[in-house]
């Protein structure tokens, strides 16, 4: 099954260049597919942040950042635990948001086409998106 692709989302800064903002577009996760974060290395260095909105409330889940295809891939996959959503007494859930910074050793996860693969544990449901600072001036 092909992975669902997401792109980095870049904030736009105000005229004083002090504050950046961005209306976020979320990607619903289909657990069986996984996610491909495309052009993950096109942002400014050390600025990629992945956000995971967890709506599964029965147990905590896991995000796996897959090892890439370059030299540092020998360090293997990296797992991040995700706190479960809070079930509401009247039905429905309050999602839990986890911020994951992939900005120390990104090359460990780099695929040959410059993307990064993200997988989720079997029962996970929720949304994902990624932001970064725009490279250049």
């Amino acid at each position, binding site marked *: 099954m092909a992975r669902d692709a997401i792109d980095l989302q870049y904030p736009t800064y105000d005229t004083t260049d002090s504050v950046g903002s961005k209306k976020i577009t979320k990607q619903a996760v289909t657990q069986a597919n996984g996610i491909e974060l495309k052009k993950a290395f096109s942002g400014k260095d050390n600025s990629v942040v992945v956000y995971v909105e967890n709506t599964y409330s029965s*147990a*905590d*889940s*896991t995000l796996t950042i897959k090892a890439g295809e370059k030299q540092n891939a*020998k*360090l*293997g*996959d*990296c*797992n991040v*635990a*995700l*706190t*479960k959503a809070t079930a509401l007494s009247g039905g429905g859930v309050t999602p839990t948001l986890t911020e994951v910074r992939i900005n120390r050793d990104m090359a460990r996860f780099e695929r040959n086409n410059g993307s990064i693969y993200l997988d989720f*544990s*079997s*029962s996970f449901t929720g949304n994902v998106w990624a932001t970064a600072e725009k490279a250049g001036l």
Partner: protein
Amino acid sequence: MKEFYNIKYKPTGYVFTMEKAEVDRLIEEEPENFEVVDEDYNMPESAEKDKSTYEKVVIQVEEEKAEVLPKKVAKTKKK
């Protein structure tokens, strides 16, 4: 019926409750980062035998260093 266990993420100390299959996977792949809190948890056999990827890499790097670095030459006294 699904079994759930409490697993601690060592760097933060936070405890997460996960399905056994997921706990088994984390303990096998990253024992340096995760540990199970529950005493009644039975570790999968393969996790006991295998070293984590992290440990394997450290050992591999050490071995590579040993091959690359020249042997120390004993100092000779100048006459």
